[in-house]
């Protein structure tokens, strides 16, 4: 046993303050009684704080639950823990943004959040320890997604539409169930878990030679984002600092990933409303950014670029300048192609007022990334919890206020504009020096929260090392973890025919959610 599971002395702070990428002594995280733990979290959330991570880990047969709270305006994180046995009063009943975290906790460790508004399996993963099924299923092992207590609207002329897991396009699997009255959607329920590969459990016990490729594969469209959160965690735990040139190249790669996805999404939205010129051009222009990543590291998704201690590939100053020039040119083309789309009155008419998520809702359910910013929530890890190169060079944060499909599309365009400017300026001013520092062993008994603003929003990895410096627990949170509920709520009172458009406007990760 490496940490005290008793209540701390009176007057000790209830929260351990830390920041993005600071490794703290895991024994210094306050362990509070459940009631106090809950009261402190609810108070922080009421005051505008946010749950960046919330997870369990087994310690001596009991479950230690740790919350990482984010104070965005102050750029701080707060850590606190509690020990639970069997059940505890749910946070979700008062703080809806905790709903997914508490379902996950129940599923992984059999801990029941009592009073959770609707406790259901999250991703149908086998429990991490021997437990009684918290969902009351007769045979939990035989249950696959779909066998599930769906929310049902009853009544004459109410009908149900079920879609998936296999979708019409080349898309990851998930199940969507609509409660409709005519064309109007009363409720959409999203069931995920089909993609569960056991990523967290493969990372536990590491780091080993497999860990980095697992991290890069959490969501294959976010290889750089998740890969960066992972190597950043390693560097914090081992006290290794990536050289400045590596930080700049990492920033370029992260923005290229954002650009490829945002440009692709604008094309996909154009396709969904039948505006084919932009669909075709943006579909092809997306490749310019993927190919730029391949110029740097040989892989269109940025795989193998990141290593513990820096980046694996350097760019000569000539090729950096050439790449910057190409990015400028590609962005000029995107502006033309996207301009056709955004300036077309019929397109705007279709996008505006569709799939609206209000600012209040966005805050309540803890939306992150472009989906949050499109609803007027001003949060971005690159500014609020700046890491790496973003501590030295800033990317202006853009918000919109209508919270509809139009805003989510337009935000992508505006963000891309800033990303290109950032990437170009980094490439034109790469710091001198090495791109790699020698890796080192991880310190024992440490905990680090590693946040990265991926193209979908906040990626949070939390690594806890054991006394040998190996991962006792590796917790992964993809931005989609929060945002899937946003998609469900965007459909409320909308038309069922709006679904493809709303879905594309969020474009969430199934694999990132299911892990």
């Amino acid at each position, binding site marked *: 046993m490496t940490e005290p599971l008793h209540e701390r002395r009176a007057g000790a702070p209830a929260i351990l303050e830390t920041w993005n990428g600071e490794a703290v002594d895991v024994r210094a995280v306050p362990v509070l009684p459940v009631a106090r733990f809950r009261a402190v979290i609810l108070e922080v959330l009421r005051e505008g704080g946010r749950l960046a991570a919330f997870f369990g880990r087994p310690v001596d047969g009991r479950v230690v639950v740790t919350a990482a709270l984010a104070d965005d305006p102050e750029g701080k994180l707060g850590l606190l823990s509690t020990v639970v046995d069997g059940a505890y009063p749910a946070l979700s009943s008062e703080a809806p943004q905790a709903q997914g975290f508490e379902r996950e906790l129940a599923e992984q460790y059999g801990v029941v959040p009592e009073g959770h508004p609707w406790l259901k399996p999250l991703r149908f993963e086998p429990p991490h320890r021997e437990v009684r099924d918290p969902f009351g299923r007769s045979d939990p092992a035989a249950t696959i997604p779909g066998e599930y207590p769906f929310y049902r609207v009853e009544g004459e002329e109410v009908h149900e539409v079920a879609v998936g897991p296999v979708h019409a396009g080349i898309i990851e699997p998930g199940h969507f169930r609509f409660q409709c009255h005519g064309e109007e959607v009363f409720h959409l329920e999203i069931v995920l878990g*089909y993609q569960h590969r056991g990523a967290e459990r493969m990372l536990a016990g590491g780091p080993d030679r497999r860990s980095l*490729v*697992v991290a*890069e594969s959490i969501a294959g469209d976010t*290889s750089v984002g998740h890969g960066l959160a992972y190597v950043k965690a390693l560097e914090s735990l081992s006290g290794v600092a990536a050289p400045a040139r590596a930080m700049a190249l990492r920033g370029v790669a992260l923005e290229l990933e954002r650009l490829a996805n945002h440009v692709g999404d604008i094309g996909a939205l154009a396709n969904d409303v039948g505006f084919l010129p932009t669909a075709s051009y943006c579909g092809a222009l997306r490749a310019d950014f993927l190919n730029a990543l391949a110029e740097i590291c040989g892989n269109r998704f940025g795989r193998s670029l990141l290593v513990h201690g820096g980046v694996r590939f350097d760019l000569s100053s000539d090729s950096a300048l050439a790449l910057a020039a190409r990015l400028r040119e590609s962005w000029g083309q995107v502006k033309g192609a996207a301009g056709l789309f955004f300036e077309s009155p019929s397109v705007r008419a279709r996008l505006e007022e569709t799939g609206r998520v209000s600012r209040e809702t966005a805050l309540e359910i803890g939306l992150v990334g472009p989906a949050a910013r499109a609803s007027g929530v001003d949060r971005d890890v690159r500014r609020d919890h700046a890491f790496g190169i973003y501590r030295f060079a800033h990317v202006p944060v853009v918000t919109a206020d209508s919270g509809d499909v139009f805003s989510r599309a337009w935000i992508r365009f505006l963000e891309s504009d800033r990303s290109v400017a950032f990437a170009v300026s980094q490439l034109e001013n790469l710091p001198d020096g090495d791109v790699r520092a020698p890796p080192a062993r991880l310190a024992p008994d440490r905990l680090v929260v590693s946040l990265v603003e991926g193209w979908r929003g906040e990626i949070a990895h939390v690594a806890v090392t054991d006394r040998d410096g190996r991962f006792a627990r590796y917790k992964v949170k993809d931005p989609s973890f929060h945002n899937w509920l946003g998609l469900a709520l965007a459909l409320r009172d909308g038309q069922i025919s709006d679904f493809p458009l709303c879905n594309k406007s969020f474009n969430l990760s199934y694999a990132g959610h299911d892990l």
Partner: protein
Amino acid sequence: MIDILQFRLRYGQQTVAFPDGPPRFPERFRGRPVVDPARCPDGCRACADACPTEAILDPGEARMRVDLGRCLFCADCVEACPPGAIRYGHDHRLAARSRDDLLVSRDEPLLAAALDEEARRLFGRSLRLRQVSAAGCNGCEAELNATGNIQFDLSRFGIQFVASPRHADGIVVTGPVSENMRAALLATYEAVPPPRIVVAVGACAISGGPFRGSPVVHDGAAGALGGIPVDLFVPGCPPHPITVLDGLLRLLGRLDGDEARRVAR
């Protein structure tokens, strides 16, 4: 409308020259690995020890091979091998008809054989495929989507991804096949009217990839489909769209050996 036409004129033709001309790749592109055991120091197995997916067999011996079904085309082995006994070439042609063919040695090209005459008669000019992502991370899915864009333009070869398995001639599987997705994969396969083909795209669908050995996945399509043969394996993490095109076109007998000479170095 005028703006659209103007843009169209400025933007020009985007479709790649492949397969009539050589495909172009960035200088650092990692194609088929090339091994030269003669350069291995005695008893050295550094490449195999560094490989995240145990893809290097018999390191340091004359029969040293790389299992492309497991290979993620990362750079760990190359970095572990200063003598250069293992390196990546630029050859994009990676697809094979059998799992054993994916074990490559030295610098021998890998060209997938065509289907038999009857299957080519049926599918050769029109092949409709249903894609099933079975715990794929969206990397392979993204590259399969890219095969349909105006650059790679799969439909010019009469190949198309369709919305329903009932309209399909086969399935294309991505991902290691999670236990949670196995039933849906089997149901989709069953819904395709025979004769039907199975294509496994990406390291995950061939061997489980980074997730091989995880207790909640089936280490790829062959394992999950239990006895149903896989007709084409397309390695990569993810495979480049050109590699996917190459595999499908060879399967249909639409690329001959002569094309080998046009591979750009």
